[in-house]
């Protein structure tokens, strides 16, 4: 039963993650990511971390990815066009690199062998133990993460804010210049 669930959701995760990476439309990619996240959340539950599974959906799927979608729609991003000539070579480095990475991990397991799975203990699943550890041993990291989130909120607010006069406020040249410069650069390259 559990193996079946694992296999189903593992396959789902891999398939959807492939879609995330391959699909040209950002909306499809994002929705596929939701599927991946959901599958991984199920795997979390299988691994005895239902709290994290719920959090995964609540935070990742419910907030972070919604934010992605929001930005995609706000900027009205369309499908990625054909990549510009000489940057395509990167994929021929990236894929072998990734294969080497997987091969490396596989080799490690092949050499070390898979250890016996420990039986699931109630302590591990219990929220109480998790919470106690979080608010005692890991109190300082917890506080720091809180601070980090605060900083992120402020930073995001400042970064995304539209200055009264954007061109003057940021010290950047006016947008037209940027666009012109960009086209000139593109022409020079081709």
């Amino acid at each position, binding site marked *: 039963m559990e193996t079946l669930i694992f296999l189903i959701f593992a396959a789902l995760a891999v398939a959807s993650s492939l879609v995330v990476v391959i699909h040209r*439309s950002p*909306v499809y990619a994002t929705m596929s990511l939701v599927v991946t996240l959901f599958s991984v959340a199920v795997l979390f539950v299988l691994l005895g971390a239902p709290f994290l599974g719920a959090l995964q959906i*609540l935070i990742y799927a*419910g*907030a972070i990815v*919604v*934010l992605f979608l929001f930005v995609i*729609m706000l900027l009205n991003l369309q499908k990625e066009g054909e990549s510009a000539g000489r940057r395509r070579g990167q994929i021929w480095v990236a894929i072998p690199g990734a294969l080497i990475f997987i091969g490396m991990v596989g080799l490690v397991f092949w050499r070390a062998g898979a250890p016996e799975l420990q039986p699931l203990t109630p302590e591990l*699943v219990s*929220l109480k133990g998790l919470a106690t550890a979080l608010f005692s041993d890991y109190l300082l990291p917890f506080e720091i993460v809180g601070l980090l989130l605060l900083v992120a909120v402020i930073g995001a607010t400042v970064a995304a804010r539209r200055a009264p006069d954007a061109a003057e406020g940021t010290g950047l040249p006016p947008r037209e210049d940027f666009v012109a410069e960009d086209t000139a650069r593109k022409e020079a390259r081709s």
Partner: protein
Amino acid sequence: MTSELVATLLKYAVMFGVFINVAPIMNWVERRACAYIQDRPGPNRVGPLGLFQPLADAAKFLFKEDVTPAAADKLLYLMAPVLALLPAFTTFVIIPFGPDLTIDGRTIPLVVAPVDTGVLLFLALSSLAVYSLVLAGYASNNKFSLIGGIRASAQLISYELALTLSVLAVLLPVNSFRLADIVAYQQAHVWNFIPQILGFFVFLVASFAETNRLPFDLPEAESELIAGFHTEYSAMRFAAFFQAEYTNMAALAALGVTLFFGGWSLPGVHISGVLGAIVGLATLVGKICVCMGVFVWIRWTFPRFRYDQLMRLGWKVLLPLSILNLILVAVMTLAGWL
């Protein structure tokens, strides 16, 4: 194993039966109530008091032509209504609807999914509801729909914080995520809305926003966006959104009454066994109905917020209030007053 599965399926069937019927009934209630508030008759031709009007509507939806815009993103366009229904019909699995039932020496908790992370699961699943709105808005390839989708995503993220924090405050004195424990706690003490009136207020306002109900129906504001994200939808797909909206409303109402109004329990009433289950379910449904009535009443009473007002309310009023409430409840819990 099998009997457990059967029990679970049975429990799900009961709850499904309750929640699937919410939409048509509420449709009638809403129209009648709004007519009453606006001092006009409302639907009164189909059946007594127009009671069969929802059935007629359903028949109409079934036979209408299902239009798909040519420029729409077909796959997402078709997926969106399904996505809308999914969380709507999964969230209520953690709502307890009666005292534990003992049959043949086996204790059956009267909740479809008696999981440890109960409330969290509810929040997690309901947070997925936004995808249907966003996708519908995007896939329609219609600027009004797109704006509706954008509004929905921003609005839901904003109010989810306040909602979650107000729910967290309820959990503090109970020390559990299980809604059954929360009900038991309220049976033993007092309904939560009395000590946590502030939290209840935040929860109420946030749940209006979460369900896109007036005065927060910005994603589908008829006068601005021409029904927003579901402008292009028709027939059964439109009905699916309709159904999802009312089911979500009912689910949130169920959560609300469970958290703040003792859930299936009534003060001073302690009945066990099958009768207790039936009374519990009836109580829960009754409370949900009252809640839905409030939803309707408010919808036809208040004007719509402007979008910036909505955001300001969410971030500058509700969020601080919910944090304040959390702190208050935490202090009270530590002081032993709860």
